[in-house]
C-alpha cells in the first residue's frame, strides 16, 4: 500500500516545480533542484487569442515558457507529454477578486446616535479612506477556493480588500497550490482600488450618500496633493500611502453604468484614468461609456429569468427588469461591437461554477470568441501592465495554461488540466478510460448482469441477478473500480475491487463473497454504452438552441417601460388658435398662434404661417409655458448628505437619475424644468442641479448649459435633528443654527483672503462653494418654516454682505413678508400643506397670497413626486386661498420660479426668442379638470397623450412577449428567481436625513 502512495507522489512530482530559493538553507535533506524541461506536444496551442499553432509544442521550465511553436528543439532533459488532439489556452485572469483576503466584519450598531468623528489616529480624517491598506498583508492562500477558481479556468487573480472608498493596494496571485507565497505572489502592490461604498467595518457617518462619496474622493485628492507639498505638519499615513500608490494601476469598483461615468469624471478631474468595474448594464448607455475611454472590468451577472407563471405575482416584475434579463447577456457583445476594451471578472457571480454557462450565454448573444478570450487573458494583463508575464503563452510568460478537449468556449468541451506556474492541476482526467457498458459479471460460479452508465468520469452501476435488481454501490476513481452489492435476500454482500486495464475491455480483480471468502471476479463487456435517450434529447436541445439564437428586445431611452425608442428631437411646430397664457404683461391671449422654430419660440400672433412646421390645431385648448418646480427631489439617486452639518461640497448634478419614471410623470403634468435640491438634513446642504426634463437623455444632457449656481440651506427641526434620535451633532437648537452659518461664512472669508494673498493654500471644495455665495456667484435656496429663523437667516446674509435668493417652504413667510420684501428674497411655498410637524403649526394656505401682496416673487413648488404632476392645480388653490387672480396664480408655477432660478431670460413664459418649453392643456390650466396633452422642451415633444397611448399598448405587448420567453426558459430547465421589484424610495426633503 505504501508503495502505491509513493508512486502517486512521484507521478505528481514529475509535473511539479519547487522554485527553492538558492539562499534558503535546507535541513531536512540535501539540496536537489529540478532543472528539467517539460514539453506538451502535438497540441493546438493558443499562444494569444489571435495566434494559434496547430500541432504545436509548449516548452517550459521552472514555471515559465521557454519556447512555443511548431518545431521546438527539445533539450535532452525534457519530460515530454504528448497531448495530441487537445487544445492549450493561456489560463484566465480575474483582476477584481477578493481571493484570500478576508472581508472585514460589519461594525455592530449600538443603536445610538450617528458617529461623526474618525475612529483612527494618524490617518485621514475620514475612516472610509484607507489607501494604506495592503491586501498582501492580509493575504492567506486558500487552496479550497483556488481549486474552484482553477476549475473555472482561472490561473491568476488580482485580489484586494473589498471594503471602503479608498481601499489600498491589491495583490496579484497565481493559483499555484503546490508552491508557496514566495512563488505565487507575482506582485504585492499590483494596483490601487477605489469604490463609492463606505467601509462596513467603520461607523463614521460621512458620507451617507453617493454624492458625498464623490466629494470625499475629490477632496482626498486635493488633500494628498497639499500633503505632498510638505505643508501639513502632522503625520497622515493615508495620504502618504495615496501618494505612494500614485504610480500604480488605478481600479475603480463602480458597479453600474452610471457609476462608471461618475468614477471616470472624478478621474478626469485629477488626471487619472481608472480601469472600472462595470455593472453589466453598460449596453444601455454605450456611447457615454465609450466616451470615458476607460477599460472596463465586466461581471457576467446576467439575471435569472423571473418565475412568472402566477399572473398576480408576475405583475410585480417591472418591464425594465424583464428586459434586463433578456438584454444583459448582450452587454459584452455590444461593448465589443463598440470597440470598448473590457476584461471579465467572477465578481457578482454566485459561484465560479456558473462562469462557463454565463460566458457561453454571452457568446450565444454574439460576443466573438476571440474577444471573449482577450477579455479573460490579454486585456486583464494589459490593464495591470503585466502583458509580458501573464495572459499569453509567449516566451517568458508564466506557464499558466489550460488543456482542453477542444474549443474552450464550446459547451461540450472538457477542461482537463489547469497548469499554474508549470504545475499541473487535474480538473478532469485526460487519460480517463470510459468503462461504461453492459457486462456479464462472474464470481465464484455466480453470474450477474452489470450495467455501468452515467457520466464517464463518475459512472454508476446497476447489478441484476436473473431479473432481480440488487442493491449496489459503485465507484471509479484513480483508475480503480470498487463495487459492492447485496444478495437477493438483501442480507449479505458481495464486494469487489480491481484496477482498470487500459488496453482491455474486461474488468477483473479481487472479490469477497458473502461468506467472507476471497476469490476473483471477471466482467466481460457484452455491449458498449449507448446514451440512447439522453443523447437524442441533447441533440434536440442543441438544435433548439441553435434555432433560437437569442431574441433581444430593443433598448429604449431610458431603458424602462415608458422609455422612447429614440430620444425626441426638436421640431418646428405651429400651435394654431390656442388660448395662450403668456405669463408676461401680455396676459392671456385668445385665439392666438405660436410658432416654434429651432427649439425657440419664434413668433406669437394671429394667422401665422409656419412653413414646413407641424401644425397643431389648438382650438379650445390652452397653451402655456412649461411648469417649473423650484423645489423637487425626483430624478435623484440621493437627496441628503447627512454626515456633516455642512455639505457644501456635494453636488446634486453628481447623482441625477435620468431613468426615474417620476420624470415622465412630471412631464405628463406639464413640468418642463425643475431644481433638484439637496435635502434638509443639515444647515448647509449641497449644490443644486437645475434640469430640463428631457426624458431619454443622459443626466449630463438634462442639465442647463451655463446653469445658474444654487445651493440648499436649511433651518429648523430637520437641521437640529428634532424628529429622530440624534443628539451628538451640532446644532441641536435654532440658536446653534445661526452659529454654524456665521462660523462657516467667517471661515470662507478667511479662506478667500488667503487665496487672494498669493500664499499657498489647500484647495477646499466646501470653502470654494461658500466663497461663491459670498461673491454673489451662487444663490441660496433656504428651507425654512418659522419666522424667527427666517429673520435670522436674512440677518446673517446681510452681515456678510449678500442676499438670500429664495426661502423654500417658508410657511411662516406671511408673518415676516415685510422684512422679506425689504431683504429682496423670493419665496417658494406649498399651496396648502401643514400639520405634519410642529414647526408648521402656523402654516396657512393664504401664505402665498399674503407674500405676493407684499411684492415678493412667489412660486408654488412640490417637494413631492406626486404633487409635482399637479402643480397647475396647486397654483389654482391660491385663487381659493387669498383671492389671487388667475394670471398671477399661473405665474406662480412658470415665470416666478424662473425668476427665482435666474432662468427668466430663457424660459418660464411665452415670449419670442425664449426656449420653446410649452404645454398644451385640454382646459383652463388652473382647473382640476385640465390635462396636459403635450409637453414640449426646447421644441422637442417629451410627452404626448397620443404617444402615451401607444406606449401603453407597447408595454403590454412587450411584457407578454418577455413573460412567454421566460416561461419557455423555465420549461427548458433554466433557473428562475422569485418575482421582485426594486421600489425606489419616494424622495423628498427628508429622505435620508437620519442616515447613519
Amino acid at each position, binding site marked *: 500500500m505504501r508503495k502505491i502512495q509513493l508512486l502517486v507522489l512521484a507521478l505528481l512530482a514529475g509535473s511539479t516545480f519547487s522554485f527553492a530559493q538558492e539562499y534558503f538553507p535546507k535541513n531536512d535533506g540535501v539540496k536537489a533542484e529540478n532543472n528539467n524541461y517539460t514539453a506538451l506536444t502535438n497540441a493546438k496551442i493558443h499562444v494569444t487569442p489571435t495566434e494559434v499553432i496547430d500541432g504545436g509544442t509548449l516548452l517550459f521550465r521552472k514555471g515559465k515558457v521557454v519556447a512555443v511553436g511548431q518545431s521546438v528543439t527539445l533539450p535532452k532533459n525534457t519530460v515530454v507529454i504528448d497531448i495530441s488532439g487537445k487544445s492549450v489556452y493561456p489560463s484566465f485572469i480575474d483582476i477584481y477578486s477578493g481571493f484570500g483576503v478576508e472581508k472585514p466584519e460589519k461594525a455592530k450598531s449600538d443603536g445610538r446616535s450617528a458617529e461623526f468623528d474618525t475612529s483612527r489616529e494618524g490617518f485621514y480624517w475620514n475612516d472610509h479612506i484607507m489607501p494604506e491598506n495592503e491586501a498582501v498583508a492580509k493575504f492567506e492562500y486558500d487552496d479550497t477556493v483556488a481549486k474552484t477558481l482553477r476549475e473555472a479556468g482561472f490561473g491568476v487573480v488580482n485580489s484586494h480588500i473589498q471594503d471602503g472608498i479608498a481601499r489600498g493596494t491589491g495583490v496579484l496571485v497565481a493559483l499555484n497550490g503546490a508552491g508557496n507565497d514566495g512563488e505565487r505572489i507575482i506582485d504585492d502592490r499590483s494596483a490601487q482600488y477605489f469604490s463609492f461604498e463606505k467601509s462596513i467595518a467603520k461607523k463614521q457617518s460621512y458620507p451617507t450618500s453617493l454624492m458625498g462619496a464623490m466629494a470625499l474622493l475629490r477632496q482626498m485628492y486635493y488633500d494628498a496633493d497639499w500633503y505632498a507639498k510638505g505643508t501639513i505638519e502632522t503625520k497622515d499615513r493615508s495620504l502618504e500611502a495615496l501618494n505612494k500608490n500614485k504610480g500604480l494601476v488605478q481600479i475603480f469598483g463602480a458597479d453600474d453604468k452610471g457609476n462608471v461615468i461618475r468614477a471616470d469624471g472624478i478621474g478626469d478631474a485629477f488626471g487619472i484614468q481608472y480601469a472600472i468595474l462595470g455593472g453589466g448594464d453598460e449596453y444601455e448607455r454605450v456611447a457615454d461609456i465609450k466616451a470615458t475611454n476607460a477599460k472596463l472590468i465586466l461581471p457576467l451577472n446576467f439575471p435569472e429569468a423571473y418565475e412568472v407563471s402566477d399572473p*398576480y*405575482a408576475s405583475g*410585480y416584475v417591472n418591464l425594465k427588469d424583464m428586459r434586463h434579463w433578456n438584454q444583459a447577456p448582450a452587454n459584452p457583445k455590444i461593448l465589443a461591437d463598440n470597440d470598448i476594451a473590457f476584461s471579465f471578472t467572477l465578481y457578482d457571480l454566485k459561484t465560479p461554477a456558473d462562469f462557463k454557462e454565463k460566458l457561453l450565454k454571452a457568446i450565444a448573444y454574439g460576443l466573438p470568441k476571440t474577444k471573449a478570450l482577450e477579455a479573460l487573458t490579454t486585456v486583464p494583463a494589459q490593464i495591470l501592465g503585466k502583458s509580458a508575464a501573464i495572459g499569453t503563452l509567449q516566451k517568458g510568460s508564466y506557464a499558466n495554461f489550460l488543456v482542453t478537449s477542444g474549443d474552450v468556449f464550446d459547451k461540450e468541451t472538457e477542461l482537463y488540466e489547469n497548469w499554474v506556474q508549470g504545475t499541473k492541476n487535474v480538473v478532469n482526467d485526460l487519460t480517463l478510460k470510459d468503462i461504461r457498458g453492459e457486462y456479464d459479471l462472474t464470481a465464484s460460479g455466480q453470474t450477474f448482469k452489470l450495467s455501468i452508465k452515467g457520466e464517464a468520469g463518475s459512472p454508476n452501476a446497476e447489478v441484476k441477478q436473473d431479473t432481480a435488481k440488487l442493491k449496489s454501490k459503485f465507484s471509479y476513481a484513480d483508475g480503480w473500480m470498487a463495487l459492492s452489492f447485496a444478495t437477493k435476500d438483501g442480507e449479505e454482500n458481495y464486494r469487489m475491487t480491481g484496477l482498470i486495464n487500459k488496453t482491455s475491455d474486461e474488468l477483473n480483480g479481487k472479490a469477497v463473497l458473502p461468506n467472507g471468502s476471497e476469490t476473483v471476479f471477471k466482467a466481460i463487456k457484452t455491449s458498449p454504452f449507448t446514451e440512447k435517450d439522453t443523447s437524442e434529447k441533447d441533440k434536440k436541445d442543441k438544435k433548439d438552441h441553435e434555432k433560437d439564437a437569442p431574441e433581444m428586445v430593443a433598448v429604449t431611452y431610458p431603458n424602462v417601460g415608458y422609455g422612447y425608442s429614440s430620444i425626441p428631437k426638436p421640431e418646428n411646430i405651429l400651435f394654431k388658435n390656442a388660448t395662450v397664457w403668456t405669463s408676461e404683461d401680455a396676459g392671456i391671449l385668445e385665439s392666438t398662434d405660436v410658432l416654434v422654430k429651432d427649439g425657440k419660440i419664434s413668433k406669437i400672433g394671429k394667422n401665422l404661417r409656419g412653413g414646413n412646421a407641424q401644425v397643431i390645431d389648438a382650438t379650445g385648448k390652452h397653451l402655456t409655458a412649461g411648469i417649473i418646480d423650484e423645489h423637487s427631489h425626483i430624478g435623484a439617486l440621493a437627496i441628503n448628505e447627512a454626515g456633516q452639518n455642512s455639505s457644501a461640497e456635494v453636488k446634486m448634478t453628481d447623482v441625477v437619475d435620468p431613468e426615474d419614471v417620476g420624470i415622465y410623470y412630471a412631464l*405628463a403634468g406639464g413640468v418642463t424644468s425643475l431644481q433638484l435640491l439637496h435635502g434638509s438634513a443639515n444647515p448647509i446642504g449641497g449644490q443644486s442641479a437645475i434640469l430640463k426634463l428631457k426624458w431619454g437623455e443622459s443626466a449630463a444632457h438634462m442639465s442647463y448649459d451655463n446653469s445658474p449656481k444654487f445651493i440648499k440651506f436649511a433651518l429648523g427641526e430637520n437641521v437640529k435633528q428634532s424628529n429622530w434620535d440624534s443628539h451628538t451633532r451640532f446644532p441641536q437648537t435654532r440658536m446653534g443654527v445661526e452659529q454654524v452659518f456665521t462660523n462657516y461664512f467667517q471661515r470662507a472669508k478667511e479662506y478667500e483672503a488667503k487665496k487672494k494673498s498669493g500664499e499657498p493654500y489647500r484647495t477646499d471644495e466646501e470653502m470654494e462653494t461658500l466663497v461663491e455665495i459670498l461673491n454673489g456667484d451662487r444663490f441660496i435656496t433656504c428651507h425654512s418654516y418659522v419666522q424667527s429663523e427666517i429673520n435670522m437667516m436674512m440677518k446673517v446674509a446681510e452681515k456678510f454682505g449678500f442676499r438670500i435668493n429664495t426661502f423654500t417652504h417658508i410657511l411662516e413667510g406671511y408673518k415676516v413678508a415685510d422684512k422679506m420684501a425689504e431683504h429682496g428674497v423670493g419665496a417658494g411655498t406649498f399651496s396648502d400643506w401643514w400639520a405634519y410637524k410642529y414647526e408648521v403649526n402656523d402654516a396657512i*394656505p393664504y401664505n402665498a397670497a399674503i407674500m405676493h401682496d407684499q411684492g415678493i416673487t412667489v412660486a408654488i413648488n412640490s417637494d413631492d413626486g406626486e404633487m409635482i404632476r399637479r402643480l397647475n392645480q396647486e397654483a389654482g388653490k391660491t385663487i*381659493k386661498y387669498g383671492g389671487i387672480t388667475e394670471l398671477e396664480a399661473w405665474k406662480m408655477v412658470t415665470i416666478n420660479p424662473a425668476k427665482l432660478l435666474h432662468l427668466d431670460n430663457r424660459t418660464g413664459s411665452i415670449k419670442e426668442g425664449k426656449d420653446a418649453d410649452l404645454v398644451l392643456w385640454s382646459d383652463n390650466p388652473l382647473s382640476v*379638470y385640465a390635462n396636459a396633452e403635450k409637453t414640449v422642451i426646447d421644441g422637442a415633444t417629451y410627452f404626448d397623450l397620443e404617444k402615451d397611448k401607444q406606449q401603453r399598448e407597447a408595454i403590454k405587448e412587450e411584457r407578454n412577449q418577455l413573460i412567454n420567453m421566460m416561461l419557455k426558459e423555465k420549461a427548458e430547465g433554466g433557473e428562475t428567481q422569485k418575482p421582485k421589484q*426594486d421600489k425606489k424610495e419616494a424622495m423628498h426633503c427628508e429622505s435620508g436625513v437620519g442616515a447613519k
Partner: protein
Amino acid sequence: MKKIIEFIVLSMGTVFSGAAQQTPAPSQSEPVVIEGATAHLGNGEIIENSLIMFEDGKLTFVGPATTKIARNGTQIKGKGKHVYPGFIAPSTSLGLIEIDAVRATDDQEELGEMIPHVRSLIAYNAESKVVESMRPNGVLLGQITPMGGRISGTSSIVQFDAWNWEDAAVKVDDGIHLRWPNTFRQGKWWEGEERGYQPNEKYEEQVTEVEVFLRNANAYGDGNGEDMNPAFAAMQGSFDGSKKVYVYADGEKEIIDAITLSKKAGVKNVVLVGGYHAYKITDFLKENKVPVLAQLTHNLPVFEDEDYDLPYKLPKLLVDAGLLVGLQNGEASNFQTRNLAFYAGQLVGQGMDKEKALQLITGNTAKILGIDENYGTLAEGKSATLFISEGDALDMRSNQLTHAFIDGREISLETHQTALWRKYSGKYRGNQR
C-alpha cells in the same frame, strides 16, 4: 424625575394651546331658505335655480325655485351660487392625531393585532385644528378610523362641529376595520434586504390567523358569553349585520381572499377599502355586492409600467363597471382630507360626469357607511347638512364657501388658519411700507 415630567407636560400645554376651535353653533332656531342656487343633490341630479328650505335641522323642501310655496325664516340669495350636501370623509383618522411628527399628539394606532374592541370615538378630539380646517372646504362629516394592527378597531361617524366626541357622534361604532395581509411585502432594507417588493412568504399563515380569529369570534357569539373575550365580543355586530366590516386590500388575490374568507366566516356586510386592482375584478365584486371606498385619486401609480393616470381614473373604472363607489384618503395625511372635493374633481378630468363624481363624496359614501337615511343627499326629511359655494366646489378655483350647515346649525367657516390670515393681513394694512 417627576419634576421633569411635570415640566414636559407644562411645556406641552403651552405649546398646544393657542387658538381653540370655533365655538360650535347652537341648534337651528329659525327656518332657512336658500333660493336661486344650483342645487347638486348628491344623487346624480341637479336643480338649476333651486329652492331649498330647512327647519329644526331637517330639510323641508328641495325643489325648483319656481315652486309656489311659503318662504319663512332667514332668506339666503343663492343666485349664481351652488349648494351641495356636506362632503363625507370615510376611513380617516381626523381628530386622532394633530401633528404627524409629534408622538404625543398621535392616537391613531393601538398596540396589538386583533383589536376590534379598540374604539376611535372616545379619542376623537372635537377641538382639533385639523378637523376645523375641513369645514371651509365643505367636508362636514367623517368616519373616524383607528389605523393599527390587522383588525385595527371600531370606527364611528362624526360631524365636524361639536363640543366633544359625544355630541359629535352621528353613528357610534359603525364598523370594524380589517387590514388584509399582502402577498408581497417591502424588503426590510434596514436589515440589509433590498428595498423593493418581494413575495411575502407568510401570506397564507397571516390569512389563516384572520380566518381563525373570525371563526372563533363567530363561535363565541353562539356561546353563552361566559369568560368575556372583548375582541370576540366586539366582532359580534359584524355577524348580525349591525356593523360593517371594512377590508383594506389592493391586489386581486388579496381582494378575492378577503371577501371570500370574510363572508365564509359569517361577516354580513363587507366594504372594500383601497382596492387598487379592484378594477380588474369588477364582476367578482358585483356578484358579491361589495361596494368600494376607493383610494384618493392624487396618487402615483404603484407599478411603473401602469398608466400614468391610473390613480386619476381608478374610481371611474369601478363606477363604469356598475359598482357602488365612494372616495377615501386613509393613506394620506389628515390635513389633506380637506382636498376631498378635488379628488372627485380629478375624475371629471378623466371624463366622468360632475354630478356622478360628486356622488363619490356624498350620496354614495353615505350609502356605503349606512348613514344615507339622514346624510349624503339633499332630500326632504334628511338632515340639513349642506353648504353654499360661490362656484363649482369640485374645482379649487371656485370652491369658495359662504355658508355651511350641519343639522341645520350654521357653523363658522373660520379656523386657526383664517384667524392668522386676518391677523397678518391686518399687520400689513396697518403697516404698509
